[in-house]
């Protein structure tokens, strides 16, 4: 009798749990839809990147921006130049301006701006620093380029607001993205298993390759040749440059892509050797086949 009662009771509890789960999943579904809407709205936004290793500074500047910037701007704050570069590459078509502190662990603000000026010359930048004086800034090579401004710390908010609005407004006026270079398509003829394998790893490495074609507008001559040594189980044992392109962005991004692809799929069984050395040619148009 008591057993039956227990079973009834636990069945009741179970059905309550189930119906609660269904009701909750309804709410979760609405939340996910809401987030998807937020995301698509975000994709249409213009992004201001603020890089500062001081979290309070990031917060203060972020809040300030949200007060005076129109709704179509969104601030992303990064704790280092490295992190900021990641955000930058991920949203490169949405970047309206970059505000960076100078002295930070790792890459400095000036080096970060140098990178931006080399590859994304149309993006305005604002360097701020408590160490650097105005005349020291003026002597830096980055200061010679237009659209690079300097703010001495402690930051006066009025000045910050004025400068940021100026650079954004100016960018809007001469914002013109040239068309992407036409990409070459080469159809490889593959037959042997190792050729198939090579095209498969090329595909996998390309997937991991974080890189912007637009950076190299007009520079078709760049080529980096990396050799990778692959063990039968697919593990990458060694990576080295047979030829560097001389462009650090291309070289480094290619090297990182290979490193991130480890391990690769195992070598084809028909390939009876202890390892496979394969050369890959990285160009601004992608991996050369």
């Amino acid at each position: 009798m008591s057993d039956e009662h227990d079973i009834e009771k636990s069945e009741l509890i179970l059905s309550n749990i189930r119906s609660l789960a269904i009701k909750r999943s309804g709410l979760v579904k609405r939340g996910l839809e809401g987030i998807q809407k937020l995301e698509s709205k975000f994709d249409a936004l213009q992004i201001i990147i603020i890089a500062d290793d001081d979290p309070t500074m990031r917060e203060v500047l972020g809040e300030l921006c949200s007060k005076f910037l129109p709704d179509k701007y969104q601030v992303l704050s990064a704790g280092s130049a490295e992190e900021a570069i990641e955000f930058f590459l991920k949203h490169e078509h949405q970047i309206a301006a970059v505000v960076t502190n100078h002295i930070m662990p790792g890459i400095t603000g000036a080096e970060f701006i140098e990178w931006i000026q080399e590859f994304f010359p149309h993006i305005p930048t604002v360097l701020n620093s408590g160490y650097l004086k105005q005349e020291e800034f003026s002597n830096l090579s980055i200061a010679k380029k237009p659209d690079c401004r300097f703010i001495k710390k402690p930051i006066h908010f009025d000045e910050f607001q004025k400068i940021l609005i100026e650079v954004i407004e100016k960018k809007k006026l001469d914002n013109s993205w040239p068309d992407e270079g036409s990409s070459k398509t080469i159809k490889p003829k593959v037959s042997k298993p190792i050729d198939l394998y090579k095209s498969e790893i090329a595909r996998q490495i390309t997937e991991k390759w974080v890189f912007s074609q637009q950076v190299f507008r007009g520079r078709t001559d760049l080529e980096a040749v990396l050799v990778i040594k692959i063990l039968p189980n697919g593990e990458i044992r060694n990576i080295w440059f047979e030829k560097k392109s001389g462009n650090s962005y291309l070289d480094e991004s290619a090297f990182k892509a290979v490193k991130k692809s480890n391990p690769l799929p195992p070598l084809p069984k028909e390939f009876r050797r202890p390892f496979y050395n394969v050369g890959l040619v990285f160009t601004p148009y992608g991996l050369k086949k």
Partner: protein
Amino acid sequence: MNTELIKNQTPEEQELKKKLSEFAEIQNELAQRELDLATLRAELHLFEVRYLRTVGVKLAELDELKAQIAEALARQKPHDQKIQEQAELARTQAQESAEATGSAQDTKEEKFKPSESLKKLYREVAKRLHPDLAVDEKERLQRQKLMAEANRAYEEGDEAKLRSILSEWENSPESVKGEGIATELIRVIRKIAQAKKRLHAIEIEFAKLEESDLYKMKVKTEKAEDEGRDLLSELASQLENDMTIAKKRLAEIARGKMQT
């Protein structure tokens, strides 16, 4: 090579040795995957609580306002069947949303961060008393009960509880093995088969969880967090705007009624 030792072993002893080492390997793998699964479940559970408390409650409040609006409209037009139905639907939705968020209020909301020692303990528990490694139904039920307790203890970060579950099991008669090599061999072969079946089920469970709306929302939220954005707060403040509009509308309807 010690040939003497091998000569001394019967074929079934050799087979048992082989199977036991295969079993030990699969047992470790199973324990690890159970740990991964329990971790993901706990993370999802806590994320759900966080979501329900920040966004869910606002959705429920909005649903309540919408129900009140629909009911006010229904009172104004008591003979319009369609409006009456809409009011009923809105009320049901509001009730469901309120129920769904109700119990989330009482749960502790934290990020799930199991310590290394907690994970190690859980793996040990999963290894020793996994229900799918039982040899008969009675033992399976016993293990299942303890495993459920272990899952709860893991989610709550209760190391002492995990330890006591482990020692309870070690002292129970079910943990004692024996009865000759042949029986032992059959037992181990069955355990391997059961463990493989469970491993497969775990992978399916993983795929199912990763397909869920909750998981997708969690991933998106965490990615945005890396960029310093709080999507849940953004959603909540959007809902607050919607609520302000709804409240205005409700007031207007009430005023309209007074005029008529």
